[in-house]
């Protein structure tokens, strides 16, 4: 399983990378040069090359989050030249390839920056607040077993497709990093909309949206002021229409609460 890299032209790029030892340590930019990079290197493979050099020089490699390297696990997360995931449409950082850069480019690499995502080290952040949102209400409360046959609940194809469009979210947090308010409205909206579109999820729709919104505030996420930066940064192209759906579901819940058919917990 070997191929010749010599067939490719190589390039060098200058990286200006954020380094920070821990959540409370002071951070700073450091400059490194990545040499011998081909157009087929992914952005993370380019960082691998830099890290191998750093280790050999006895220096600390750059910590960065990554796992599947095929754009689905949502682990990789860095702001490249000011844009989360580097700005290629519908592309995670691990799928961004160096053919999008030129020899001699200077590239700024920073971690996600949001109040709800404290820095762990260098480019690694703690996105546990997104898990908290799902724990608050991102589910249908069914037990294992005791459910009806799958085909006993027909769901129209448009509703099913709409739910799937929302469910494609990979939970990377780029929407939060891109938002000037550090809001998680696209993330929460996608989950609320997925379930609101399906009969299984409609039973708990008011409780779900109320709990989601309360938890967003508790976790330190901001509010939406319609910049739509989230949609532009989303590697899965999640549409801001799901934020509108979140707001609509929230209004519906308020009316239900007024009518006395639903009591939000903790209010």
């Amino acid at each position, binding site marked *: 399983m070997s*191929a010749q890299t010599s067939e490719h032209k190589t390039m060098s790029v200058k990286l200006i990378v954020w380094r920070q030892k821990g959540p409370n340590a002071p951070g700073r930019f450091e400059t490194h040069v990545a040499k011998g990079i*081909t157009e087929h290197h992914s952005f993370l493979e380019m960082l*691998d090359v830099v890290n191998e050099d750093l280790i050999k020089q006895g220096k600390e490699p750059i910590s960065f989050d990554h796992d599947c390297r*095929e754009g689905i696990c949502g682990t990789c997360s860095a702001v490249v030249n000011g844009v989360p995931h580097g700005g290629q449409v519908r592309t995670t950082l691990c799928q961004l390839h160096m053919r999008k850069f030129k020899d001699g480019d200077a590239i700024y690499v920073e971690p996600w920056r949001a109040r709800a995502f404290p820095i762990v080290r260098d480019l690694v952040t703690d996105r546990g607040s997104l898990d908290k949102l799902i*724990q608050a209400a991102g589910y249908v*409360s*069914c037990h*294992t077993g005791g459910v009806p046959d799958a085909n006993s609940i027909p769901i129209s*194809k448009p509703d099913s497709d709409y739910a799937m469009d929302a*469910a494609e979210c990979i939970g990377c947090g780029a929407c939060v990093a891109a938002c000037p308010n550090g809001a998680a409205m696209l993330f929460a909206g996608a989950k609320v909309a997925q379930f609101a579109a399906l009969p299984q999820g409609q039973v708990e729709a008011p409780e779900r949206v109320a709990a989601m919104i309360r938890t967003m505030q508790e976790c330190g996420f901001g509010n939406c002021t319609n910049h739509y930066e989230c949609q532009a940064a989303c590697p899965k192209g999640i549409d801001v229409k799901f934020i509108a759906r979140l707001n609509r579901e929230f209004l519906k819940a308020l009316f239900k609460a007024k009518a006395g058919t639903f009591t939000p917990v903790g209010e």
Partner: protein
Amino acid sequence: MILDGKAPTGPIEQSWDKHRFDMKLVNPPNKRKFKILVVGTGLAGASAAASLGELGYNVETFCYQDSPRRAHSIAAQGGINAAKNYPNDGDSIYRLFYDTIKGGDFRSREADVWRLSQVSNNIIDQCVAQGVPFARDYAGYLDTRSFGGAQVSRTFYARGQTGQQLLLGAYSALSRQIKAGSVKLFPRTEMLDLVVVDGEAKGITVRDLITGEIRAHTGDAVVLASGGYMNVFYLSTNAMGCSVTAIWKAHKKGAFFGNPCFTQIHPTCIPQAGDYQSKLTLMSESLRNDGRIWVPKKKEDCGKPANQIPEEDRDYYLERKYPTFGNLAPRDISSRAAKEQCDEGRGVGLGGRGVYLDFRDSIHRFGENVIRERYGNLFEMYERITDENGYKVPMRIYPAPHYAMGGLWVDYNLMSNLPGLFVLGEANFSVHGANRLGASALMQGLADGYFVIPYTIANYLKDTKPGKVKADHPECVKSIEDVKGSAKRLLAVNGNRTVTEFVRELGTLMWNNCGMARSKESLTEAIAKIPAIREEFWKNVKVSGTGDEFNQQLENAGRTADFLEFGELICRDALHRDESCGGHFRVEHQYADGEAKRNDADYAYAAAWEFKGIDKEPELHKEPLKFENIHLAVRSYK
């Protein structure tokens, strides 16, 4: 030792129902007295933790990732099998059972596979109830498609992201239990040892990957759902963090390792582009529903653009060799066929290691829009990686290490030979035999987690006293010392070579000598070379930083150290199994047409290896496999 899989006897159709009745129960108020540790949060781990939490057990769950939702089950693309027979095309539980046994080349336990086929239908019901948005037709009912090794359409899917949607379903159920307080989550926490007290699994030692703290967690049972070990080949379709570590540590504490040489090489992956490459990317097998695989007939055509090669000069070799299954031949057969074409010098692309996967005819028949709707995200992914448009030029694909059928040996209750240690999903060896069929991994993970372990674990717990072992037990203290000691040793070497260099060296050796084709010579050579790489690793590896901080190099070094021990075991197992079956192809054993030649007289057993020390030969135990319902036969897909 002859191992007993404890499979129920009697008619196979009633085996699981009868066994469920025969097993003991833990009564509801007693459940909360038991603590269960679940390692891994993929399909098997998340569904197990959620279901056990719901039942009232105290559950602690661990993953090395920052969130349970990132487990590598998420990357499964194509779908999940179930015997629903919704399309009315002749499917049944029996047929799924038959296909899985045959697909696995008769090296799995019949009763386990029957149970898997039986509960497959419950899984689809469960996932729909959770709000998993499976593909539907215009009447609003569930849609299915075909996968390799089957002539019926039984694969349920959610675009090209079925694993993601199923995992998010299990993750949502898990999240609900975390909120309810029945499950406690420990993300960015890696299991580095198993605590065994009086021969039973009673705890694990973990490292907090953020602070570096090493501590023990104790429980009444340990459930390992830590995934597969294909990163032993360095380049694989697995996530970067996937490792053998959790199950290897359990193996070193006495758990038998089952059939480690049964490894799956997936036929449709994007070919390697260079030596710097860190992983290989899979293109779903579902593409073979509409794509046709071919290579040029003439070697001199291999360098030409595909569209300049006329129809009569193309060799659709799978359709030619396997007219009945065609492009949907099972994975092991398709992978070997691709290798064969490339070995003959008819491969395409860089280094001649690729074959075409061509959608021209399907686009012509259905239109580009239909193909886009079915596989749009896969075409986009292909273009991002290769810079080529799959709608205009045929994709290039090549086989890559993908899935481990082998894993820790378990009995019918999914318990290893160590009482109290349960193993689920890819981490165990149970149902796939020597080759897994497409869309069956998701099925197994969820079957084990939702519908098997909640029943079988009670049968063990019923006879144990809760809370027997506390964190200050001497075995815990010793385990913590051992784990601290090996981290310290890794950091102290301070040599000249990086961890990546070692894992690449091991992986290249494994791929060349123990990959798609294996021989006595290649395996003997690997067994001789691996200890030398291991020795060099402990003398010359360079791991920067300290143990008391977030240190990704240290994490990788630990996983690599385990692969360097484990790689030898795969080769030993492959050498001892002097036959070809499924994904294990010994060049000495093939028919004239190149098909795998099984030896049922001598090898119709599961091999379970017992650890005897790092530089010592492991001891082989055997579990004879009985085929009472499906007759042993030469597998044919022609």
